[in-house]
């Protein structure tokens, strides 16, 4: 626990404002923000710095002395074997984002604009309620449905249709992930659509635009920040998802999360490579959020 003496290094310990000589002035901020700040520094900031350091050491194993010596671990990610896994993860994440947008937009639009206003909150709550159930069990539910002798094929068989082989394939992963993340998409699109100026829709219709024109020229541009935020959230969540590819994708659907997992808890650990992959993941996520915040701010200003 010698680490806990380090927090002065932290960029986020509340600084005492130099203006007031009274010690009272910084007592409040330190008492309120200090404990959580300390916890976050010790268990989030320092660990992130440590994996960055470890990621610079090739072929590190636990117990070895840490001597940062290069970017080998990062270059290893471009090995054809691993780049395939990264592209597969990107494919799953992009596919899930597209599916969620396609399925989620009509639902959010219906709840926010077409459904009677008194029911809106209840409908939204009802739609996101399944988020409260374990994601592990939701993936398991799809195993029950999609496996060769599962519910879907039993139903198809009983009405004389040939069975479908979906499990252990990318399609099952896409189904499971879309199911998992659809409520997030609907939640974010709803809050964006709710603020949509209905008079614009009316004006557009009065001026003779077809519903399709109104949709593309009014609704979509007006809700663009929501679409961007929802898509980014689903993209990031599915990029780091472990459970769905693991349970529904079979052996040939390994993703980045599984690859990182193997570097630590697998048969032949490589902490340096695993740390490098994690660092890339954290960087990608942080940069996309920073971009979204900037883009979102600019869009809501005028």
């Amino acid at each position, binding site marked *: 626990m010698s680490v806990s003496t380090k927090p002065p290094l932290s960029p986020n310990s509340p600084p005492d404002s130099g203006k007031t000589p009274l010690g009272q002035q910084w007592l409040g901020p330190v008492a309120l923000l200090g404990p959580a700040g300390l916890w976050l520094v010790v268990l989030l900031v320092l660990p992130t710095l440590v994996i960055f350091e470890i990621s610079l050491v090739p072929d590190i194993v636990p117990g070895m002395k840490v001597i940062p010596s290069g970017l080998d671990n990062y270059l290893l990610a471009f090995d054809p074997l691993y780049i395939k896994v990264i592209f597969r993860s990107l494919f799953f994440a992009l596919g899930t984002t597209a599916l969620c947008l396609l399925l989620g937009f009509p639902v959010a639009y219906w709840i926010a604009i077409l459904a009677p206003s008194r029911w809106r909150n209840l409908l939204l709550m009802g739609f996101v309620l399944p988020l409260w159930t374990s994601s592990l*069990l939701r993936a398991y539910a799809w195993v029950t449905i999609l496996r060769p002798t599962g519910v879907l094929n039993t139903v198809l068989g009983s009405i004389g249709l040939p069975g479908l082989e979906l499990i252990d394939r990318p399609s099952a992963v896409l189904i499971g992930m879309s199911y998992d993340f659809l409520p997030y998409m609907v939640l974010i699109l709803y809050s964006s659509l709710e603020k949509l100026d209905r008079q614009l829709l009316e004006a557009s219709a009065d001026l003779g635009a077809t519903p399709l024109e109104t949709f593309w020229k009014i609704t979509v541009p007006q809700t663009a920040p929501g679409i961007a935020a929802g898509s980014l959230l689903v993209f990031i969540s599915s990029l780091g998802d472990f459970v769905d590819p693991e349970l529904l994708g079979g052996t040939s659907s390994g993703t980045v999360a599984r690859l990182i997992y193997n570097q630590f808890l697998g048969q032949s650990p490589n902490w340096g490579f695993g740390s490098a992959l994690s660092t890339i993941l954290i960087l990608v996520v942080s940069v996309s959020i920073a971009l979204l915040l900037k883009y979102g701010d600019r869009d809501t200003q005028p």
Partner: protein
Amino acid sequence: MTESAKPLDPKTQSPDEESIPDMSNESRFSLSWQTLFAGAMFVFMYLPILILMVYSFNESAYSAGWEGFTLEWYRKLFGDPRILTALRNSVTVALCAVGVSAILGTLMAVGLARYQFFGKKLYQGIAYLPLIVPDIAIAVATLVFLAAVGIGLSLWTIVAAHIVFCLAYIAIAVSTRLADLDKHLEEAALDLGATPVQAFLQVLLPQLMPGIVSGCLIAFVLSMDDLLISSFTAGAGATTLPMEIFSRIRTAVKPDINALSVILITVSGILAFVAESLRYRSEQR
């Protein structure tokens, strides 16, 4: 659920003209296909959960055909020491992590609302990062860090790691509540001679309670559900429920896990209901 929530809906009183825009005469067809589609998506959201629940009562362990009602899987579940130990571990972790986070997260939310300081954006960014950053990254960082400083893994290292994300969810819920509060009450208490600590405990805290409770419920459910962070930070023997479930279902369909999921889904359903109705009530004010 419907009955109790309807009168609480703040939008009920809002003028109805906004709810029926010219959309309706634009095309009736559009309205109906969207209603049908939304209905289908509601079915899509609930059907897998219902199927999972129904099959926990199916006598056949392997086929998806219905072969009769049984409570056998529940009996098997409650006689399974490994499941019961894992459940106890999970509940211990969740209660401890949520307990600590409730205090730290509430203090943090109040502090962030009250003070402006250099580096506040950075503090906020770091505090809310666990909401977005994939679990696997947090799990890896915690494991490597614990190894680097030589702390042995146990049940308590899981608790420490869970606090990091529980903190963020509770702080979010508390700051939402804080934003709708009347700041003058606390000032009045101070003017009337209360010490800052008294004002905090006796005036501010009771008002924040709905936010704290609903944040705690979300954090509890997420802690109970976490697989990756627990797997990376668990010491020998500290198997949590998701870890136990995961190790069983990756090989085959297990009806006793269906029985377990019925229980877990029921419990999280009740927690969700409590949290959502708290949110409704505080929105209404």
